[in-house]
Structures are given as C-alpha cells and as structure tokens.
C-alpha cells in the first residue's frame, strides 16, 4: 500500500518538475509515467537484492534505454527526457543535504554514512545512463550494420544480375 502511494506521489511530483524544467505538451505525461516506472523498477529490484547501487543502476538503465527509443521517435534529445524522469524518485537531493548538514554539525559518522551513499547513488545513476548509451551504440554497430551489409550485398547481387542480363542480350 505504501508503495502504491509512493508511485502516485512520484507521478504528481514529476508533474511539478515538468513545470520546473519548462517541459510542455504530451512530454509532461511521458515524464510522469517514466518517473513512476523508475520508482517501480527500483522498488522491484530493491525488494529482491536489497542493494542500493544495483537498484539505482537497474532503474536508470531501464529508463535510459526507454528514453533512447522515445528520443528517436519524438526527435527530442535523450537527456531532456531522462532528467525529469529521474529527478523526483532517484536524484539524491536529500542525501546531498544530509551530507553537508552533518559536516557542518561536525557529526563525522553520519557525514561519512550519507557521503558514501551519495557517491554510490550518483555513480549508479551515471553508470546506468552510460550503460544504456553503450548498449544502444553496440546494438547499432552489431545488428544494424549487419542488416545494412546484407542489404547492400543483396542489392549488389541484383545489380550483377542486371549486368548479366545485359550481357546475354548482347
């Protein structure tokens, strides 16, 4: 029940962040759905592994892959979709605040606790985005290039056929 509430809350918060980042039109809805999806993936993976790093990494990778696809369909830069989707659920604003708050209060134990969490979370988010980008590039290189190669070979065959036919005519 608490999880459902969180998903709804993330959805609504993302509406607010869309105004914050000046996003318009149907993209507002996409961002909100994406934000809820991010949190759903996070909750799912966190339920299984109980590991912050892996949960953050998986959630970011999944959403970044989806965004890469959406970006090609809607012709929007990828980052413009990823940022509003990731901000409400994952961006570690509270940990960043707690890190500095405890530093100023001179509570070194809490400071290092939140500081390490902050570093882990930021690393996971960025590696997730990087991983998704890498996967897309690999996919393009390996599969799309193959398709192009097969196509061009096919076209070459046809051209040769045509030439042969011309020879026969002669």
């Amino acid at each position, binding site marked *: 029940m608490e999880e459902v*509430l*969180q998903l709804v*809350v*993330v959805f*609504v*918060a993302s*509406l*607010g*962040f*869309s*105004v*914050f*980042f*000046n*996003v*318009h039109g149907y993209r507002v809805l996409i961002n909100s759905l994406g934000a809820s999806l991010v949190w759903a993936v996070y909750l799912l993976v966190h339920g299984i592994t109980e590991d912050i790093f892996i949960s953050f990494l998986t959630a970011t990778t999944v959403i970044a892959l989806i965004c890469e696809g959406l970006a090609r369909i809607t*012709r*929007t*830069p990828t*980052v*413009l979709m990823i*940022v*509003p989707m*990731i*901000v*409400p*659920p994952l*961006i*570690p*604003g*509270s940990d*960043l*605040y707690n*890190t*500095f*708050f405890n*530093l*100023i*209060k001179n509570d070194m134990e809490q400071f290092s606790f939140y500081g390490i969490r902050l570093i882990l979370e*930021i*690393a996971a*988010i*960025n590696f997730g*985005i*990087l991983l998704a980008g890498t996967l897309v590039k690999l996919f393009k290189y390996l599969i799309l290039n193959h398709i192009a190669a097969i196509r061009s070979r096919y076209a070459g065959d046809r051209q040769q056929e045509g030439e042969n036919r011309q020879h026969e005519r002669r």
Partner: protein
Amino acid sequence: MRIQTITERTDGQEAAAESSRILASMMDLGETMLAAGGEAGRVEDTISRMGEAYGFRKVDVFTITSCIFTTAEDEKGVIRTQTRRVKHINTDMEKVRMCNELSRRICQEPPKPEELERMIEGLSETRTYSSRVTYLSYALIAGTMSVFFGGDLYDFVAAALVGPFIRYVFNTGKAAGIQNLAVYFLDAFFTGLLIYLLVRFRIGHSYDRIAMGNIMLLIPGTGLTTAVRDMINEDLITGLLGLSGALLQAAAIALGFVAAFTVFEH
C-alpha cells in the same frame, strides 16, 4: 581592369562579412542553448555541425560551463574567432529542445544570413508557464516530496505552504542583486524558520520531512549528477566546475538550515 579588381575586393569583403555574420548567429544559438541548460558537449556538437553545413572548412568549438569559444575557417581561408560568455544558467528544457530542432533544420537546408538571424531571434519567444502555475508547481513538488519521504497529510499541507515561499525569497534575492550563494543561504535560513513555526503551530508534524520535501527545490541534485556525467563524457573542465558549484551551493543551503536551528535553539 582596375574597376574589376575593386569589385572583386568588395565581393570578397561582402563574403567575409557574411561568414562573420553566420558565425555570430551560430554562436547566438549556442549561447541560447548553454544558457537554457544544454550540456557543453551538445553545444559544441551543434555549432560544429552547423558550421559544416554552411561550408566552413574547419570549425573548432570549445565550451565550458560559462564560455563558448569558436574558431572557424571559411571557404576563402579567412580565420575568425568569436567568444561568448554565459553568466546565468536557467534550466529551460523547452528552449533546449527548440534550439535542437532549429539546428537540425538549419543543417538540412542552410538559410541566408538574414533568415538565420530572424530564426534565432524567434527563439527568445518560447513557451513558458505563467508565474501562478510556477508557484503552484513549487507547492506541488514540496508537498508530494515530503509525502514521498514518509510524511502524512499535515506534512503535505505544511510543505506545500512553504514551497511557494522558497521561490518568492529566491526571486526577491535575485532581484536585489545579492550574490548567488548568499541567496541560497538566506533562502534556506528563512525556510528553516518558517517550517519551525509551522511545526510549532501544529500545522505540520515532522520537521525533517517537511524540510526534506522543500530541500528538493533548492538542493542542486540535478547539477551534481549532470556534473559527474560531464566528467564521464570527458568534458572534465565543465564537470569539475559544475561539481564544485553544486557542492558549494549544497554547503550554503545546509549552512542556512543550521543557522535557523541555532536561532530557535536559543
């Protein structure tokens, strides 16, 4: 004979003036993009692609968080350098998107310089939300985020009351021309005091949760994440500048809240 050389020269000068104007327009587009929160890498990419489309022989762009430097060699071999300084970055995704779309259009079919200038001027009139909607969105973000961090309905109401106040203090500080970090410090300080009062008068229950929801509006979490991504993308200078900026800002905000604590503990 003599007349011919003169016309040739004026032709050359006109062409030179034209390529200078094109370069200036490209820089305008890059500047708009950077000021709207576009990444350094994207700005560099956009300018050099447009340069290629306009037939420049070589375009070298270097962008860091607040500056763009471009050296371009046109078809006649004339080399020009232009520099832009971006002082305020105001995240505006709609504008970045429009810039991106425009640069795509320009690359496909480079327009004449006058047309290009007109197109880029048109960018200043992108859609924005009205100030009432923006204030409402601050309330919405603060309220929902405080629930996200475990607050109840009372915390939601209290946080939603504080959210617009944050924007008001921020705008006032900016309008007064106060230094950026000081604005964040003051904003956090007054927010801390206000939340304390709200909890005192039993409008909200948990100080921490209300504060956490509102901190999401101030804290540069996105800036920090973007800075690290810039560094991973090998834009090391931009990343380092962004990182130190974000950390300083976070420190100023934490200091503001600590100051508020100190005030009501005594």
